[in-house]
Structure formats: C-alpha cells, structure tokens
C-alpha cells in the first residue's frame, strides 16, 4: 500500500527503498511464484509444451482468461473478507445471475432465442462474389438473414438448380424473419437485470447480518443453498412459459451476446477495470478505509463513528455484484444457463484466491491486486498440472487447490514455528499425519509416473510413498526434541 509511505522510508534508514518494499510485498512474491510454477511445469512436462511458442501463447491466453473470470469474484470475496465477513454464496450467485440474464433474454426476445440453427447475414460483397449475385438482387438479399454460412455454401457448391435454390432460400427467408439477432437493448437490460439481482442478494445478506443478526457464515450459507434452487425453479418456469415445456438449461445461440467472451479481451478488460475500481475503492476512498477498519476491529470502528452496517452492506453488495458479472460472462462463455451445475464450488475458489493473495480470514488485511494474483497463481498451478499429467487433469483440481491454499496460509506460521524449532509432527498425531501425507505423496507419484510411462506405475507410487515417509520420519526424530538451552 503506497499510501502514507513517502516519509517513513527516511525513518527506516538504509536498505528500505521504495523498490525494496515493493519487492518484499506479497504481490511481488506471487508474481515470482507464478513465473516459477510456469518454468517448473514446463521443465517437468516431458513434451516441454510451455517452451513452444504456440502452446505457450495458448496457455497464457487460457490462464489469463480463466484468471479474469475467477479474478472478478475473487475481488468481491476479498472485499468481504477484508471487512471481516465471508460470502459463501458466490457460486450459486453466479448460477442465479446467469439464469436471470438468460431468462430476461428469453422473456424480452423469445423469437431470437428460439433459433435451433445459426443464422448468418451475408454481406453485399459476399453476395456479389458468389453466383447468387446473378440470380438474386443483392439489395434484396442483404437485408435478410440466412442459415449459417457452412450450410449455405454447401448448397451453393452443390450447384443446386436455380429454382431449387430459390425455393430453399425462400423457406430460409421465411424463417429468417423470426431469427433476428437479439437487439442490443435487450442484452443491456438482461445484463443490468443480472447485476441488479446481485445487488439485491448482497443487500439481503447485509440485512440478514446487520439487522437480523445472523453470523455471515449462516446468512450466506442459506443463500448458497437457496439461490441455486431458485435459479432452477426460475429456469423451469421461464422455459415452460416461453419454450413450451420445462427445461433445465436455457441455450443461447446469439452471436452478439457470445461476443462478450469470444473476444478474449472483453472479460480480461472487465477484470482489469474492476481491479482498478476495487483498488481505488479500498486504497483511496473513505468507505474503503472503513472496510479495513471494520474488519480490523468492529467495535473500535463503530466507536470511531463509522456506520459499520452501511460498510457491510457495501461489502456484501460488491461481492454479490462481482459474482453476477461473472455469471453473465460465464453465460456468454458456455452459451447456456445451466443452474444445476454452473459454477458449483466456485465460492471456495474465490475465497481460496483471496486468501492465497494475502487476505486474512480474521479481516482487516488484504489487497485487490493480491486477490487477482492469487487467482492467477491457482490457475497457473492447475494449468501446469494439466501439462504434466496429460489425462484427466481436471480430476486433480480440488487436490491442487487444497494443497496450494494450505501452503500459502501456513507459510507465515511455518516460518514462525520453525524459528521456535517446534516439532511439526508431535506425538501420535505426528505419526498419523506422516501416514496420510505419505499416502498422498504415493498417489501423486502414481499419477506422475503414469504420465511418463503411459501405464499405471505402482512402483513410482510406492517409491514416492516410501521416500516421503522416511523423510518425514527423519524430520520428526531430528526436529522433535529441540536442543534445549542448558
């Protein structure tokens, strides 16, 4: 935090320049860690995919895009965590806002949403380039929408007889009337509606917490369960009403809406803009400072004349709105609202990203940049794993996220307890822990061994298990009894 530091540098004396302090910050460490993971994964990977330009760029693109989606919710989660709360409802909020957005699209533009085929608008140039131009008046054609390009070109290449083509086009034209793209204003309303739903849910959290007096954990746990179910009900109702029968998914075929994420820069830009906004909010606004004060010491904050209930409202609203923005982007990314499975468990990814990025669950500590970098670090690790373990890499995700979170949070405490030369594996609990850590290592060894040899390798697993066990036992017996002072 660069605030207030202009002068203190003088007081700290030599060796504490501004750059040194930036380098020692948690954010700089995360950047270094991200680069390190990238290099290590590239080196371990037998094919060294990271070191080839095309797959390097592809991986960077993938990581950045995934980070953008996770980063947005991580920003929201970070604000709540810094304010001393927790928002468990993020994943359901994403699904709910995606469903709200899709429902509004369906409601306001039912015909455009019903298309089972994609429609393509020919440009005047294309019409002239093809044989069509001779048979049809280009001005007449250019105003209409056609079935997707591939089908249409196929028809042309097969050189349909003129009258057959004509009748084919005529049916297409009659359908095309109904399959215009979704008007921009409808998209705008749907997106705003989704974000508004986030604001409403965040406000509901604030009410449950500040007025009813529920602990944040309970308040957001109830919406975690409730919102997803509400989204499913909404999906059923709206599809029975507009599509003739209940469906569990609302599909979106509209290219205009899908541009939101097909253009990779859009989610990235959204994430960057939100990062800048949240940074400005936390570091340079009074309300933002009050978020830190609230999280640091709620009673003192109130007694300093801070309207703590308003700050909580703000924090929970920001978190839920960030989740609803991600919901809209995800809806566009996967082209369908699927409330049953969408973003399940995403709240934990968001909280993990914030915590890896330096937020303390006790509140009062954390930064916006840290939260986004925390998300990026997690995706870098996940992507690295998928490079090293080729098959079913996604099954390792939870495992990896768990390990990363434990290591990141334990890092500081470990340094502390190491300096006190306390034993890591005391007593019976130590032996049990060594057993389970060795088993985990063994399983990991099997998986890695398989990616090198192409078949399940029990030997590699046993080797990893044994080595880990011996190593940890050695650690226990050597470090167990700290050398006592005389």
């Amino acid at each position, binding site marked *: 935090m660069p605030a*207030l530091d202009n002068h203190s540098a003088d*007081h700290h004396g030599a060796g504490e320049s501004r750059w040194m302090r930036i380098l020692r910050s948690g954010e700089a460490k995360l950047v270094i860690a991200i680069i390190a993971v990238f290099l290590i994964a590239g080196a371990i990977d037998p094919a060294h995919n990271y070191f080839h330009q095309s797959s390097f760029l592809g991986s960077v693109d993938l990581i950045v895009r995934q980070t953008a989606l996770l980063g947005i919710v991580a920003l929201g989660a970070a604000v709540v965590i810094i304010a001393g709360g927790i928002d468990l409802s993020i994943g359901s909020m994403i699904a709910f806002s995606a469903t709200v957005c899709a429902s509004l699209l369906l409601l306001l533009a039912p015909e455009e949403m019903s298309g089972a085929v994609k429609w393509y608008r020919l440009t005047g140039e294309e019409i002239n380039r093809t044989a069509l131009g001779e048979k049809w008046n280009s001005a007449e054609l250019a105003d209409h929408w056609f079935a997707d390009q591939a089908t249409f070109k196929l028809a042309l290449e097969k050189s349909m007889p003129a009258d057959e083509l004509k009748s084919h086009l005529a049916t297409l034209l009659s359908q095309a009337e109904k399959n215009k793209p979704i008007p921009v204003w409808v998209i705008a309303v749907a997106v705003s509606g989704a974000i508004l739903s986030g604001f409403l849910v965040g406000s509901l959290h604030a009410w449950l917490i500040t007025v009813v007096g529920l602990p944040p954990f309970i308040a957001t746990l109830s919406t975690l369960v409730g919102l997803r179910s509400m989204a499913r009900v909404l999906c059923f109702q709206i599809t029975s009403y507009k599509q003739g029968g209940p469906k569990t998914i609302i599909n979106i075929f509209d290219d205009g809406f899908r541009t939101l994420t097909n253009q990779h820069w859009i989610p990235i830009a959204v994430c960057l803009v939100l990062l800048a906004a949240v940074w400005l909010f936390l570091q340079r*606004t009074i309300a933002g400072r009050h978020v830190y004060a609230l999280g640091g*010491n709620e*009673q*003192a904050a109130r007694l300093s004349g801070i309207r703590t209930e308003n700050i909580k409202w703000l924090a929970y609203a920001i978190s839920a709105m960030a989740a609803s923005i991600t919901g809209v982007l995800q809806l566009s990314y996967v082209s369908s609202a699927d409330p049953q499975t969408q973003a399940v468990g995403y709240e934990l990814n968001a909280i993990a990203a914030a915590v890896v990025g330096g937020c303390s669950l006790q509140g009062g500590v954390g930064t916006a940049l840290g939260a986004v970098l925390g998300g990026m670090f997690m995706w870098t690790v996940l992507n690295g794993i998928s490079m090293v373990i080729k098959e079913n890499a996604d099954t390792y995700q939870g495992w990896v996220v768990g390990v990363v979170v434990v290591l990141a949070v334990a890092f500081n405490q470990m340094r502390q307890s190491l300096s006190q030369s306390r034993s890591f594996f005391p007593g019976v609990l130590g032996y049990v822990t060594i057993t389970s850590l060795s088993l985990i290592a063994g399983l990991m060894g099997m998986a890695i061994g398989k990616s090198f040899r192409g078949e399940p390798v029990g030997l590699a697993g046993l080797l990893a298990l044994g080595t880990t066990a011996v190593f940890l036992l050695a650690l226990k017996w050597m470090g167990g009894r700290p050398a006592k002072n005389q």
Partner: protein
Amino acid sequence: MPLAQLPPLLSIQQVTKRFPGVVALEDVWFNVQRGELHAIMGENGAGKSTLMKILSGVITEYEGAVLLRGQPTAFGGTRDAEAAGVSIIHQELNLVEQLSAAANIFLGREKRTRFGLIDNRGMQQAAATLLGLLECSIRPEQLVGELRVGDQQLIEIAKAISLEAEILIMDEPTSALTETEVARLYRVIDRLRARGVTILYISHKMDEVFRLADRITVLRDGKLVKSVDRAGVSRREITHLMVGRELEQTRLGDGRMPTETVLQVQNLCLAWPGHARQWRLKDINFSLRRGEILGFAGLMGAGRTELLETLFGARMEKHSGQIVLDGQPVAFSHPQQARRAGVALVTEDRKRLGLFSQMSVGKNITVCALSDAAPGGVINPSIEAQLARQSIQELGVKTSGVEASITSLSGGNQQKAIIGRWLLTKPKVLLLDDPTRGIDVGAKAEIYRLLDRLCRQGLGIIVTSSELPELLTVCDRIIVLCEGRQSGEFARGEATEQNIMEAATNVAVG
C-alpha cells in the same frame, strides 16, 4: 552462617529474551525465597509480563536459566509449569465463561467416575471445599460468565490451590476489583501465605506493594534495576528506581478560566431492564464549560462508562432526559452523529475498543478525519500523512514514523495517538474513559499535561478514572457516581481521596 541459608526456591539467572526487533529482557537475575511475597514492579514495557510468561511456561525459548528448587527447569508449556508447582493468574483471566466454576477449576484434569465418564458431582464437591477456603459464596455449578470479575479471579486462585501450586504468580490482580474485593483478596493472600505458598506479585500500585510485599524487584527497559527488602526502601525511592528520574509532583489546573457552558445534562436516565437496580443511570444532572475538566469518580459498575457512552450515542438502548450541546438539544443514536456534532470519546479498553492493530500509526490517527484528507472523495495520501504527522508532533507521539505499526508503540503512545485521532475531528467536548489505564507513570504525567493544555485551549473535557489521585490532579470538579446515581460533587479545593471514597461507597441519594 552460610550453611544455614536455604537455597532460593526460585532463581532466575541471566535470562534474556529477544523478540524480533526488541530485547524484552536482558540479563535479568534475582532470587525468590521460599514463602515470601515478592513484588515485581516496573513501568509498562519493563519486561514484567515477559518474565512471568517464562516462569509460567508460556514462553519456552529464552537464553539463560531458571532454577526451581536448585534444579534447572525446561518447561515445554504451562502444563509442565503447573506440574512443577508454578501457577499464574493472568491479568486477563483465562476462564471458559460457558462452563461452571467447578468445571473451570478442574479444566484439563477432570475427575472421572469408574466408567471413565466425567464426575461432575465429585468436582463440584471438591470445588465447594476449595471455594470455602477462600471464604467466597460462589456455587460450584454457577456459570463463570455470570460471575463478577472479582469472583472469577477467586476461581483462578482456587484452581491454583487445587494444583497445589508452590509458587503463585499474580499479574496485576487488583486492576478490576472493587474495594471490598481487594480487601478480600488481601485476606486470601494472607491465607495462601499461611499455607506456605510463595507469591510473585506484579503491580503498578505502590500502596498494595507496600502493604503486601517482603521484597521488591524493580525492572526497567527489560533490565534488572534492583532487588530490595521492602523494609529498607521508601515509595519515593521505588518510583525513582522505576522511572529512573524524580517525578515532579504534577500540579495542574491553576488559573484555568472556564467560559460558557458547552454541555448540559438534565435528568439523564438509562434503564436496565431485568436488573434489580433497574437503572444503569438515574437522574444525572451536570453541566460542563469550555476550558474545564470535569471528573467522574466511582467504583466498578457505578456507571461511569455507561454515562460517557450515552453522551456519545454509543449505547444500544435509548436514554431519557435531556442533553444540550452548545445550546442545541441532542440525542445521538450512533457515534457518527456525536462525532459530527463535536463530541469525541477516547474509549476505556484501548486494545478492544480503540486500536486498529493491523493499521499503521498514521491510519489509526486519521481514521475519523479522512474527509479532511479526501478532497473530492478520493484520499490524498500526502495530505493524510501530513495530518498524521501534525498530530504526532503536537502530541509528542514517539514513533518511527506514520507508517510504523500501531502495535509497535508503547501503551502511552498508543493512547496519545488515539487522543490525536479525536482531536483531528475538532471536538467541542472530549470524553476520556479511564485514559491512563495500563500506562506507565511517565506517560501518565504526559497525558495529564496534554489534557491541561487542551483544556486551556478551550476544550470541555470529561474524564473518568479508577485512580483517585489522577482525578485530583487533573480535574476542576469531580462528580462521584454510586450505583448509577450522583452521590457527590466536589470542587477542586474540597476534593480529597477520603470524601470521594465515602461518596462512592455510600448510596446517598440527595
């Protein structure tokens, strides 16, 4: 006869403890004889608490050695210390409020029945015996959270007796007690000594130490100053050893010129539903003028904190009666309104109610006045730093800079930073709730002089304190509260510890 001399029960030999950036103890050595009451004195930050944590096994890593009955100790934790016969009663009591008195006494060494289940009846009987020894009327099955602080402390003492502690460490045991509770504690201490218990007694309070102690050890800045027999020293000498300088008798308040009334309180009442007393505050009437310091004296529970919180709009329940600030009737329901109207409250419990421990000194100071540093709603770090530096300079806060962590400051400097926080809001009325609690002697005097200066600049100040000499030093007038009512008012000339104490202990409603 050297042969007849017993080896010391406890011998502290060249103990040094370093924390990152600080040497909390350096080469401290002294002996404690069996059966004596050994007082450890020193200003805050002198290293008393660190030493006690080492003796009681809370801190396990240090340089030097501690010999117990001539044997080196190597406590791996408080359990080891307790097993060796050393128990500690912390200033902040270590009790589980949701459990009964008996369960707390036997916490961690619960009695069991033949079937391995917990033996509640056995524990309650044993607890009753122990509590009887301490002449207190607590029922063993009572939940600790329902007890008064003084009674809670007795439970800790009962626990220590049940552990058959040979050495009992008491860390500022009277800081939260009423006069009667203090008297009872003294009797308990006498009984413990009759049982042969050696007591290490940490205190700020000269009266107590001179009443109780056989020997006094004075620490300063983590170093041993001197270990002396109580009989051979005077209070003045001890004060001198503690601060390392002669304290000039603070004489403040002469020639203050109070002007117009800034705060008027009429028939202020604060209900207490469900309590036998019915009122937290009843019929409070007073006025405060600019340039005046008004003190509120009273025992624990007399309503001092409640009164200040009511004036500041920090209480949840509604009050009745009238509060007139600068000619305007006010009824604050949130501290924000009070702050905007020009009332400031420096809270009682600095750590719990005042400090943002994860923030820097500068941010702690500016938190209430950020709008001054945020032209157009965006905080300008250089204006903010300027504001903070100004405060630091004006109040003489000793810190390495605005970016330093607030927790790196001593208690007195933390308190000055918090006063600075409120002065930045440009208050008309400054309320201070026990502002020198847990602050060392030197810093106290500085705070008194600061209050005097602010008062002379035209601020109306209300201060409460649990220490009467403090109120006598700084106040122009002292109002005494007793069980929520006004039981006396004394002008500067007529107030003495004697008549204030009489008013505070006697429910005289006039």
